[in-house]
């Protein structure tokens, strides 16, 4: 923990979120190091998604501070956060169901162009983004589905599309909320490989339940329980921690884990 603060791309200070008296996130101090794949784990209801919502401003924190690259972003709007270079995915599949797979990625690519307000121009100019969109789709194994209407895609593929859409904005910090959830065994492996591949030159903060994926990918792990940080460290440290074994991984006390 002796790293210089400029090594941290994202830092939260005593972050708190209360819902009508119920504390979902409690004094969380999260430090995400630049270039890391940082995993956020913990039992259901621990507050992981809520932390993501706070970081991306979909929820306002009750107390505390969030800094991105040393800059205070606590009071910013969600779209501003995205334009700073923090792009998230959602736990529940977030695609544009009635657009084609290609259009899904293109909507993301379009954001950095300056014609998105132009209601008087033909959408044919968007075709100039097709090559890049195809590349992104190939990178997640969806090349052949480019013209499929997204709603017809299998669940695992929708999640892959989400990653491609997120990548389209080339985010400095990528937040992935359970990217492998609901996937078959093969898709999980492929997605994990993909995440490793795209982690070059960027930082990834991910919520992940599959511990195999976590052990394979994560440089650092933060364990959340009942809204508070239980422990932190690399996989070996965390998996040895008796509290963690009991609360999360272990079979010794599953009742307590889901409490």
């Amino acid at each position: 923990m002796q790293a210089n603060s400029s090594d941290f791309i994202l830092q939260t200070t005593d972050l708190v979120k209360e819902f009508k008296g119920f504390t979902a996130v409690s004094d969380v101090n999260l430090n995400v190091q630049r270039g890391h794949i940082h995993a956020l784990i913990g039992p259901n209801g621990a507050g992981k998604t809520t932390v993501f919502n706070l970081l991306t401003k979909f929820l306002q924190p009750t107390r505390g501070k969030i800094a991105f690259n040393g800059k205070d972003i606590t009071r910013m709007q969600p779209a501003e956060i995205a334009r700073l270079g923090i792009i998230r995915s959602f736990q529940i599949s977030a695609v544009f169901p009635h657009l084609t797979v290609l259009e899904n990625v293109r909507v993301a690519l379009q954001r950095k162009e300056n014609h998105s307000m132009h209601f008087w121009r033909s959408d044919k100019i968007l075709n100039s983004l097709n090559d890049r969109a195809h590349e992104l789709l190939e990178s997640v194994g969806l090349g052949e589905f480019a013209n499929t209407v997204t709603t017809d895609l299998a669940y695992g593929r929708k999640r892959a599309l989400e990653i491609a859409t997120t990548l389209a904005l080339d985010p400095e910090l990528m937040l992935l909320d359970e990217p492998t959830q609901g996937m078959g065994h093969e898709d999980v492996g492929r997605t994990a490989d993909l995440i490793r591949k795209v982690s070059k030159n960027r930082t990834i903060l991910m919520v992940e339940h599959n511990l195999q994926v976590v052990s394979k990918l994560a440089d650092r792990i933060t364990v959340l329980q009942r809204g508070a940080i239980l422990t932190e460290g690399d996989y070996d440290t965390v998996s040895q921690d008796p509290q963690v074994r009991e609360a999360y991984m272990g079979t010794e006390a599953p009742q307590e884990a889901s409490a």
Partner: protein
Amino acid sequence: MSKVNRNLIIAIALLAIAPFVLYPVFLAKVLCFALFALAFNLLLGYAGILSFGHAAFLGTGGYITGWAMLNTGMSTELAILLGTAAGAALGAIYGKLAIKREGIYFAMITLALAQLTFFLYLQAPFTGGENGMQGIPRGELFGFIDLTNNLTMYYVVALIFLFGYAVVSRAIHSPFGQVLKAIRENEPRAISLGYDVNKYKWVAFVISAALSALAGSTKTIVFQLASLTDVHWHMSGEVILMTLVGGVGTLMGPIVGASLIVTMQNYLSTGEMGNYIHIIMGFVFVICVLSFRNGIVGQWNKFKAKNF
């Protein structure tokens, strides 16, 4: 020739010969409401926003154009332009106030603002209150095309309608329209990609308000009348009805819906069924919504996709 071009030529041909089969003023009325519904559907169908106050814009177009024709001596096209601009300006303000809210709250605020507008026009000295603004001259287009002839009037309305259709069609098939669809499909996702969704919704709202006002202005010229009917909340409901019956989120739907509803009103209101018109329209609505949720055009598109 591409399919789009062919359809366009057929549509223009139909518009050109229609007044030789049907009464031009009736057709002009249909086109005014079709334009109104098209404008409304830009919001509901392509941005996923339900406004329950669009009568405010239709009525504003009518009153401002009527006032200009009665009081300023400007030529007809300028009066229509002024009415449209007034609707756009009102839309800009109402849009700013309403768009921060979502779903049913948005609908409620638009309704409240439209009611406010209704009472303003009821009280304002220039609107003629309950009696409305009557005897508005049609005037001359560009100062030399006399509009008193119903056939000429009809063709002018047809051109205005085509212009409005072109605007909506282009907006839908533009980079802007693509973002709008993304917002309709998944707003949080659009936000998380960095789009200021409220800005996009606001622009759509202003375009929709402007075209609604254009429809109102044109209607006022055709009927030489602006009245409280056009700002009444019934009118806001009617345009929803037209859009849903015809098919929300399709370009043709609002046109079909408006034609159907206006035709029904016209035939029913003269006969002895006149007293039951709202009940009958209510029935039509319920039947449409229950039996084909995608509206007439939506259902037709589905049928075509399956069978051809």
